[in-house]
């Protein structure tokens, strides 16, 4: 138990991402309403973004924008451990953009579904398809 | 003309925002401001009847008004907080209701300022403006104050009128 507690606590960022991920996954599979699925999809994606972002965090560092005052061309040595890891941020910017795009497309398809079937409940759509 | 004014205002905003005064960034700023001024020149100065000088006057008169407004806000806020925190007071004074009054302000912008001021002043919120009629929701009789009671112009409206129409 003494080992267990730090194990739980020290990675709370990871647990948070995990919980959100699972909520999103569950929602995407289990929810009957298609808009709910879309929202669950956003949650799922943001959980992954959270995971990446927390990966790039460094204790005692600052944001990955170099402090001014080095002169234009960085005459002073820059201590890498002083800045957070920029790479996950870059990746996640892309992931957010992809998320928004997917959201837009999913919503457009959703509207089309509603136009055709008159509903966005999955079971009702399935019924109307079978008829 | 108005585009130029817009440009100048925007340029001011740009300078404050960017905080970089080397040629490259200034040039970028110039281009940006020009662009926005061209896109949105009809937005910032919607009503073209008034001249620029009048506008400047308004801006100067607006400063004391905003100080007064801040004071009003703080005073009135205490009232709402009291209502929120003390159950007894809440029981006694809380009396939401809606009332209407007719404004004499002419320009849209003045109406907007008045409406926002009313909203900012705690206890009253502008619901809508139908032509000249303000629909206001007040949380208590006290909060409604002279907006509801005054026959001609409430104090706030008078001050707004002073700012925008130069009347006392």
């Amino acid at each position: 138990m003494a080992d267990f507690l730090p194990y739980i606590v020290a990675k709370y960022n990871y647990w948070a991402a995990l919980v959100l991920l699972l909520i999103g996954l569950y929602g995407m599979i289990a929810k009957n309403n298609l808009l709910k699925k879309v929202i669950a999809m956003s949650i799922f994606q943001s959980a992954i973004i959270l995971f990446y972002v927390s990966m790039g965090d460094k204790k005692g560092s600052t944001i990955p924008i170099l402090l001014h005052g080095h002169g234009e061309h960085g005459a002073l040595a820059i201590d890498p451990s002083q800045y957070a890891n920029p790479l996950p941020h870059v990746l996640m910017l892309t992931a957010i953009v992809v998320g928004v795009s997917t959201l837009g497309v999913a919503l457009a398809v959703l509207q089309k579904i509603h136009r055709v079937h008159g509903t966005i409940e999955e079971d009702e759509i399935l019924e109307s398809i079978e008829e | 003309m108005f585009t130029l004014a817009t440009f100048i205002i925007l340029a001011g905003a740009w300078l404050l925002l960017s905080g970089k005064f080397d040629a490259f960034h200034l040039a970028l700023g110039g281009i940006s401001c020009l662009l926005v001024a061209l896109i949105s020149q009809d937005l910032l100065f919607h009503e073209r009847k008034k001249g620029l000088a009048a506008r400047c006057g308004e801006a100067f008169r607006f400063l004391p008004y905003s100080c007064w407004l801040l004071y009003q806000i703080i005073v009135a806020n205490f009232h709402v907080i009291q209502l929120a925190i003390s159950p007894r007071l809440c029981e006694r004074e809380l009396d939401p209701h809606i009332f209407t009054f007719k404004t004499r302000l002419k320009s849209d912008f003045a109406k907007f300022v008045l409406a926002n001021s009313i909203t900012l002043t705690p206890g009253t919120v502008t619901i809508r403006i139908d032509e000249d009629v303000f629909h206001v929701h007040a949380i208590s009789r006290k909060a409604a104050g002279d907006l509801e009671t005054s026959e001609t112009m409430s104090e706030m409206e008078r001050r707004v009128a002073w700012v925008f129409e130069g009347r006392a």
Partner: protein
Amino acid sequence: MLNIVVMGLMLLGLFFFFGTSVGIVRFPDFYSRLHAAGKGDTLSSILLLAGLALYNLHHLSVDAILVSVKILFIIVFIFIASPTATHAIMDAGYEARVKHWVKRKTPKEPWPGEERRRQERHP
């Protein structure tokens, strides 16, 4: 000294925010909640931001001043946007004829939408 002013401003802001929050929870209907939200929120934001802007000035430099000015910008925008949003929400509620809490002891004059709605509910 500066720090104390900052602390004062921020504490005041926190206090207002607390009041706002309590109001949001406690007030009986949506209109009055919106009152709490619209005002307390704006004021507390202004106070808190003002505190932070001031604190930022304590290493005085051009950059710091510019940053404080930016925070002032934020204040201005909140000043414009918050009441507008409040108004928009209130208007929406009014348009949607959200039920309006009326003090039971002293029935006042019906509010404009009341009559119409009653007719719709009980034709």
